[in-house]
């Protein structure tokens, strides 16, 4: 029984670990005054429920293009939804005239660039793409901060 449980746990851990290979992180502008975000805060910002940091500063989320596998990975890890489900979610909010989806960055490089120059911007990129001292990692997707 225990060995079965251990095997199941191992498989579950592997399943969790596999999609995290890209090591996605959420970054904000270093001058935003944000040290760390909880998973709930990241969800609220990217799903348009509440787009502000704890210090009251407005958050402007950026999405990667759908062609980037990191976009699907981000939402899969964040809310366990695929992009079709996210499309349906945003269709409801956009076409009812409510919240708008995150603005689209052209690429991960563009996202880092926008976050480094815009105090409110927030984006998800691979950890290896974080190459500017003007951005700060505030959440590891699927990491320990949740």
């Amino acid at each position: 029984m225990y060995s079965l449980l251990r095997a199941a746990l191992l498989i579950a851990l592997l399943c969790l670990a596999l999609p995290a290979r890209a090591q996605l992180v959420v970054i904000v502008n270093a001058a935003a005054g944000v040290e760390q975000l909880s998973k709930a805060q990241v969800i609220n910002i990217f799903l348009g429920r509440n787009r502000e940091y704890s210090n009251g500063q407005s958050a402007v989320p950026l999405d990667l293009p759908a062609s980037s596998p990191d976009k699907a990975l981000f939402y899969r890890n964040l809310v366990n939804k695929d992009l079709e489900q996210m499309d349906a979610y945003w269709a409801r909010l956009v076409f009812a005239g409510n919240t708008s989806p995150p603005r689209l960055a052209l690429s991960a490089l563009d996202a880092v660039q926008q976050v480094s120059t815009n105090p409110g911007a927030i984006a998800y990129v691979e950890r290896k793409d974080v190459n500017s001292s003007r951005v700060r990692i505030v959440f590891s997707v699927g990491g320990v901060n949740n």
Partner: protein
Amino acid sequence: MPLHATSRFRLLALGLGLVAACHAPAGRAGESAGDEFSIRGFGTLGMARSTNGEAQFTRDLSQPHGAGTSWSPRIDSSLGVQANWLASPSIELVGQALSKYHADGSFAPQLSLGFAKWSPDARTQIRAGRIGADFLMFADSRSIGYSYLPVRPPVEYFGQLFFSAMDGADISLSFPLESQVLQAKLFAGRLHEQAPSALGMWDTSGSKIAGIILSTQMDALQLRGSVTNLRFSHNHDLAGFDQTLRQIGTAYGYDTAITAANALGTKGTNSTYYSAGFVYDDGPLLLQAMFNYIRHQTNLFQNSTAAYFLAGYRVHSLTPYLGYSQVHSNRRYSSSGLPDTAAFAAVNEAYESVIASSTLQQHTFTTGLRWDLQRNLALKLQWDAVRGKPRSRFLVSHPSASWNGKTDVFSVTLDFLF
């Protein structure tokens, strides 16, 4: 689908014009033009048929005819185009033209949304213009089939809501608390739509609407409640029946008949909508349950209570779902005010039939499958087993005397975004 191209483009232009005319272009450094101005759309190609030809199955009270025993694209097909313009970081202009089966029997596009949105900070949002009416949760996205799981929102719950937008303003305030977000929305405006019914066309334009919606989001769970008041500005057209009753009351000296005729009026009367419900949306699992109670001051409509439950679970690109919805109305005590004698039998019978026309006593079991064929394209197959009493006639169109309240509705839709 009879689309009137000329009026379609005229209204589309109106919507876009609204967006474009309000503000001169104002580009901002570091932003692509595509982000500031966008044109997007949504649509549904749908076919539905009902197995009982004694009444036509409609989606809601705004539809003058419904689906009969042969496959019909009428009730579910729609096409919408929307322009958004982010005129400044805090001001957005939105215009939307929607072609669907309207109260006048046409698919002529109408301006479904056209408003300016101002977000002075992250917690506040103010909209003014033609805005969606969402006091029943999701009611403002009823035409966007791609956005929800079933073919159409449950008829028992949403069917009485014949309007989807108002001309007015709303303010939304968010209060983040730890991982929870509380939201309050206040709205007020006027309706602009017509509502066809078995009794005749009802002009609800100018009717005042106001209400409050409170909601809270806790992780995957959203709780929501609302209270809305509607004050009608016109009487319902009763094909002269109320006038006849008044004249008979005057001629024969029955003040009670005059009172009864006046009580059928809708002008100046209030209808109040109460709703509460929850949505649990966690990865592949979706659960929804909603309840509403509608109370009318006029004797013309019966108060009603409705509820629905929907559950779906996504496996790869397939999401099977099950739903149950029900509605029942309560006939209040009222009479024509005339004695129950042979001389007045015809009038009394007519009065009873007017009062009975808003009776609701039915429930529906829904079974369906959504198949996301690719991004922005979903195919849905659905079977609705409508089980009601023969007197439940309010939400179907043109019921015959032998309508037994029961039918099975089969639907296929292709929902898309572009």
